[in-house]
Every structure is written in structure tokens, then in C-alpha cells.
């Protein structure tokens, strides 16, 4: 058994090789990426507000990433652009301000890279999170009712109470209002807008 050192060396080198290709090289190439001032004169990617950053934590906690990706593939690698999920592919620079990034692999639901551009209405998002089928009756998205509160209307109806169709509406005298978590999550969704041009990924 005097070949044991050789076997261990082989295993070690295999892992070193993989680590070099998958971790070290990408880090050397992309680790120093900085935001840039793009052709529109704006800082790209823009940072997120504090509320949206909190919303990203809700996004992670609710497991949105299991069904929604946040990456638009280039034209030669898929039909993402044809589906209207973005005007350009996404590149590493899009994600440098995010910890963690929610790239996602499953697409049970649509890609959310630019959802803040496609659906700019907070009321729409609240309604959709509370009852996805109130917006699309074929939706397979789970309802996130526990992010909302049913409360008795005290005098006047709350300003941010959800405007629901009869099927999902609470009983008379009650209203559905978003919790702080729901508001943060929607703020995060509305902040998802990677439609700015970048040097390496211009919008033509």
C-alpha cells in the first residue's frame, strides 16, 4: 500500500483544479467589478433602499427563489428575451450590490429580473401576493395570506387596504391590510429593475 500518498495527491489535485476553475479564476476575473456610470449618466447598478433590502430577506425567507429566477439569458442560449423578460441579458455587474444574489434555477413562475419595470403598481403586487388567482385564475403560485392581516374597519377604511374581488374579499366590515413584511417584499419587487444599459451589456 505504498501508493496511498499518490492516490491522495491525485484526489487533492482534482479538487484544486476544480476550485481553481470554479472559484479562483472567476474571482480573479470578476471579483473587482465596480458600479459604473453608464451612457445615460446614471450609476449602474443602482443601490437598493433600506426597505427593499429588508424585502430581499423576506424574499429569501419565503423561498421565492425556488420558483422564480432573476437572470435573463442571452439570445443564443434561450428564449428569455423573446418572452419579454428584459431588453438585454444580465451580466455579473448586475448583482454586485446584492448579498446573496437570487439567481435561481427553477422557473415555475416567470423571471423577476425586471418585475419592477413590468408591474410598477404596489397595489397589484399586494393583491397578487394575497390571492394570486385574483389576478390570473390559472396561477399556480401559493397565496401568501399570512403576510397580510384581516382587521375590523375602525371608522374609515385603511389607505393601504387591499381592493379584492368578491371571491377573495373579507366579510363585511373587515379589511385586509399588508404587514410590514409584505410592504418590504413589495418594495423589493418594485426595486427589481435591471433595464439600465451597461458597457458590457448595452441595450440596442
Amino acid at each position, binding site marked *: 500500500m505504498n501508493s496511498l500518498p499518490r492516490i491522495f495527491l491525485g484526489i487533492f489535485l482534482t479538487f484544486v483544479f476544480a476550485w481553481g476553475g470554479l472559484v479562483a479564476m472567476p474571482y480573479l*476575473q*470578476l471579483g473587482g*467589478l465596480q458600479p459604473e456610470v453608464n451612457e445615460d449618466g446614471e450609476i449602474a447598478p443602482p443601490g437598493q433602499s433600506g426597505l427593499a433590502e429588508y424585502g430581499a430577506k423576506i424574499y429569501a425567507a419565503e423561498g421565492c427563489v425556488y420558483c422564480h429566477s432573476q437572470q435573463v439569458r*442571452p439570445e*443564443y442560449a434561450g428564449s428569455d*428575451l*423573446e*418572452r*419579454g*423578460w*428584459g*431588453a438585454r*441579458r444580465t*451580466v*455579473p455587474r448586475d448583482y454586485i450590490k446584492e448579498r446573496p444574489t437570487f439567481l435561481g434555477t427553477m422557473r415555475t413562475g*416567470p423571471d423577476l429580473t425586471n418585475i419592477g*419595470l*413590468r*408591474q*410598477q*403598481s404596489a*397595489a*397589484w403586487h399586494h393583491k397578487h401576493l394575497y390571492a394570486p388567482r385574483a*389576478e*390570473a*385564475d390559472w396561477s399556480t403560485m401559493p397565496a401568501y395570506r399570512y403576510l397580510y392581516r384581516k382587521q375590523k374597519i375602525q371608522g374609515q377604511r385603511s389607505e393601504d387596504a387591499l381592493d379584492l374581488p368578491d371571491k377573495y374579499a373579507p366579510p363585511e366590515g373587515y379589511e385586509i391590510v399588508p404587514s410590514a413584511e409584505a410592504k418590504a417584499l413589495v418594495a423589493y419587487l418594485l426595486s427589481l429593475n435591471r*433595464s439600465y444599459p451597461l*458597457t*458590457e*451589456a448595452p*441595450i*440596442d
Partner: protein
Amino acid sequence: MSESHPDDHNPELEGLDYGESGDIRSIHQAVLREKADPEDGLEPLSLWLICFFGLILAFGGMYLGMFNGGFRADVYDPFPVGFGGPAGRDGAAAAAAGEKKELTLMEIGEKTYKQNCVACHQATGMGAAGLYPPLVGADWVVGNNKRLGLILLHGLEGKITVNGVDYNGAMPAWAKNLNDERIAGVLTYIRNSWGNAASEVQPDQIAWLRAEYSSRTAAWSEGELLAIESALPPSEVAATTEAPVAVETASQETVPADATTETPEAAAPAN
């Protein structure tokens, strides 16, 4: 024969005939000579295998040479500009500058529509039943161009009736994301595609609309829009259907080129 043979009481030779050897190596000598035991060493490799691996290496090297993008972090174009040439930013920019051609409003519109609108209104302009209204044959699209322009600039929320069907969604605002040319292009495109036929919308009309409603940020509602009766003022650009519109840089060559190619016969009735 009482005399004893010297081999008689050698236990190793018991059972052997006279003259037979008990040495296993000498017994197998003939076999070993004909078929030697295999040994580790530098055996010659099959020539075919060498050729096969050579081809794989050559293909790998060629692939890496063509598609490495200069090993730059900011190059994402997988297709080679030139063999070993600058596939990167400079090369791509140079190639783009050389090929920057002028697009018509319809072409700008088609591109912009595909980038931003197909997710909801679909490539067919038919929308999605009960969710996103169709653009085909819709009065909102082919009718008053001012209302249509305002919907694009600031968005629309709440109930809207399109082709006799009620929709209740939220159209996003595009004032921040699309410039005048792109908005005019999209309007022109949706007004003249899928069987729709209506007047073009020029960028200067959108610029006027933007300035006129510069204080507006909220999304429109159906009622507010229906209260607007007037259409957009006519464009100051001569609205010729074939006039190319420069996207990036104005070119001085197209207009004289059109003028000189005019034949005398065609020019005569104009005079």
C-alpha cells in the same frame, strides 16, 4: 531389486515417474517462453487512439482560441469578431459603429415592443384573456393618439374596457425608461401591425406631450383619459412613411441620395 534407489525416500518426488522433475519453473519453461507474463512498461499506444486524442486537443484549442473573448470579464459576445482579434469592447464598439444603420420608426418600434411589451401584450398583440388587453383592433390603440401616448408615458391603472371586455390591471409607466424616439416607434408599431392601420406618431409629438404633462406622474384612469378629446398636434417633421429616422447619429447623406435618384419623369408632375 532390493537395492534402494536414492530417490526412494525423497518426499518431494513421491508419485513422480523416474526422471520426472519436480521443479515447477522447469515444468513451465516452455509455456513461459511462448506466452510471457505481462509486465508494466512503456508499451506502444494504438495509433488510432493517439489520433483521436490529438483531434480532441486540436478542437479544444481551436474552440478556446475562437471564443475566449480575450479572457476579459466585460466581454460576453460568444461569437468571434476575428481570429485572435479584439472580440472585446473596442472591437464590438468598432463593429457597431461601422454597421450603425438608420432605422425607421417601425423598426425602432418593433425592437422596443419586443424588448418591453411582449411579456404582457404578447408578440401577436393579442394580450392575455382577462389579464392584459389586446392591442389588435382596439380603439385605444388606433384611435386618439394623445390618449395612447399618455398611457405609455404614465401608465394606466384600474378598470378599462377594450374591445367590449373589461380589464383591471396596471399598465406600467415608460416615461423614465424609454426616450421619445422609442415611444413614438412603439406607438407607430402597434398602430400599424397585426392589421391595425392608423397614423404614425413622430418623436417630436411625444416630446411635446412629455413637456405638456411634465407635472404628471400618477397613472391614468379610463375616465380621465376619456375626458381628453383632442389629439396630438401634427408633427413638424414631414411625416413621410418612408423617411428613415436616425437612431444615434444623424446622417447627412440619405436625403440628398433620395433627391438625386428621383427620375425626371417622377419629378415633372410635382413641378
